[in-house]
């Protein structure tokens, strides 16, 4: 029953989201289609919640449903505010991807997460990071393109405005990711900040973008150094994301889930 309804809900969401990408002419129709997909996910999660008689947060498959729901909601809100169509499609694509993974691995619905990950904070923590990294990656692309244009001496100030706005939005989500992580850590491990290597690197990433934002705030005209700062900040972000596990400090981290079943 749970599985069949999942197929229906995921089918409705996929169909309406894919349609929304195919009919880009009318804004209102697209928004309605995106909203239909979101509602279909929301209704399914509500159904799952009531039939399981517990919040559906305990298994891998269940957390992916929440990712799909929240990523598409934030995508739509961001679209309403900033009209970044690529971000809306990125969010819908990520949502579909998570639904598709659930479709490919039905066994994930019963696969329980390790105890520390079974928390209402898990989903928001991951979701805001997925969105933040997308914005910051996009800002890095603008930075690289900007540096290339500087070399060709065809730089335009509007690149900087695009980069700045992407960083502002990405940084807002990054802040949420960091703070949600802190609030979760208090519930799971007893303290909100323990300088765990992953935390430390997340903090460094946050500080890196903080430097960029302040530099831009003071000297809007000096863009070459700012563009380099932006590119460097993303390198730090990548260290935080993938690199931490290979550092000597990582052997004491709680964020390495290699033992996860």
């Amino acid at each position, binding site marked *: 029953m749970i599985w069949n309804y999942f197929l229906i809900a995921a089918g409705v969401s996929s169909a309406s989201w894919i349609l929304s990408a195919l009919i880009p002419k009318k804004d209102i129709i697209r928004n309605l289609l995106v909203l239909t997909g979101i509602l279909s996910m929301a209704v399914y999660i509500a159904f799952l919640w009531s039939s399981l008689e517990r919040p559906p947060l305990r298994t891998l498959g269940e957390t992916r449903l929440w990712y799909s729901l929240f990523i598409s909601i934030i995508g739509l809100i961001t679209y309403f505010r900033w009209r970044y169509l690529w971000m809306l499609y990125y969010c819908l694509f990520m949502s579909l991807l998570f639904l598709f993974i659930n479709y490919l691995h039905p066994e994930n619905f019963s696969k329980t997460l390790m105890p520390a990950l079974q928390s209402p904070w898990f989903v928001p923590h991951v979701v805001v990071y997925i969105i933040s990294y997308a914005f910051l990656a996009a800002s890095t692309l603008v930075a690289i393109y900007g540096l290339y244009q500087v070399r060709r001496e065809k730089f335009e100030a509007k690149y900087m405005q695009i980069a700045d706005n992407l960083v502002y939005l990405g940084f807002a989500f990054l802040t949420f990711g960091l703070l949600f992580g802190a609030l979760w850590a208090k*519930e799971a491990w007893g303290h909100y900040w323990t300088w765990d290597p992953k935390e430390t690197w997340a903090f460094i990433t946050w*500080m890196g973008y903080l430097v960029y934002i302040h530099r831009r705030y003071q000297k809007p005209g000096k863009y070459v150094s700012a563009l380099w700062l932006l590119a460097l900040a993303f390198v730090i972000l990548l260290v935080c994301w993938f690199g931490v596990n290979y550092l000597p*400090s990582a052997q004491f981290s709680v964020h390495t889930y290699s033992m996860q079943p």
Partner: protein
Amino acid sequence: MSKTTKPLWQNPWGYAESFLIAFGLLLIGFLLEFTIQSNSGTSIRYPMNLILGGVFLTLLLVFYRLIKKSKLYLFLSGIPASIGAISVLTLLVIIMGVTPQVPMQDKNLITKLSLNQLTTSWSFLFINFYLLVILAFVIIRKSFPFKWKNWGFVCSHLGLWITIFAAGLGSGDLMRLKMDLHENKTEWKAYDDNGNYYELPLAIKLNDFIIDEFNPKLAVVENETGKLYEPTKPSMIMVEKDLTAQLHDWSVTVDEFLPLSGRAGEKYHPLHDFGAAPAAKVSVSTNSAEILTGWISCGSFNRPHESLKLNDNYSLLMTVPEPKKFSSEVTIYTPDGKKEDQILEVNKPQSVNGWKIYQLSYDEKMGKYSSLSIVEVVKDPWQIYVYIGIFMMMIGAIYMFWRGNKVRINSEQ
């Protein structure tokens, strides 16, 4: 690019001075560390931290009154000073992110400079202190006279200031203790990492410790070293009834799986005994079409484990099951005579009398037969102030998302 280079320390100060001051503080910190090592065992507790916090605030205000008309104030509340402080703190935290932050016994440059315990070092303290001063001046400059358009700025910066201030001062009052609960016994003493015991204003009786486990997994190990053999992934496969799976070069079929069993004679039988262990009858076939059949078990604290020898080099074995969920059913007593029944579970702490109680661990050797539950008890009287700061930063982040960098684009045009 300025055409004429301004001599150092001539007003107005800029990036050069800012970085020199920040690095200078770092250097003084390291020198101090090298000569008189900060004792990480002692921390500033109530009421000392409260007094120091008050003194700091007073000095800050006096300092502000003294310099508010000077160039120094403009520098300290300006962006170059902020960037200098943020950058040097970032540098310090990068060192922290690369070197393992654990106590070490050896005497070398790392331990002499406390690079392995940076959060309790002088340089970390100095930089944070400097950052707090700068941040305070930034907030004052943006708040007086107050303009409504600055509320998001003030909210996020003040939130960060409160968070650093409260977390820093409160760290001395933070108590994180462990308690060993044995089934059907009442415990009121907790111990810290150094083995000091404390009496708590509450007592906990463990009624039952419950553990729910995943099925064990199949894995191949090298006979000689006992190391996990993993030429291909996945190198471990969870045992399930009637499972057939490919593990490296071997095809493994689970003929029978007994979650609780004991060996009697030639085979394992279902058994609901204290110490009963999972066991499985498996058939393994290799390319040579030869089929090996036998029982494997991961054993338990009082039953031996058993593996199946595949050839001279490798054996198939069953891993010890990992916990899916563990929880303690407890009764908590407080000095006012109240008692309440609670369930402690990972991610679901309980609050009693100003203490938060967390399910932490259990006797891993005993596994599901553990009658010991280890809980962590935490008291952090400053947490509420840190959270106020955190929520202010969150509001600031929402503001940032909503406004983007519009403000500045307008002013540039």
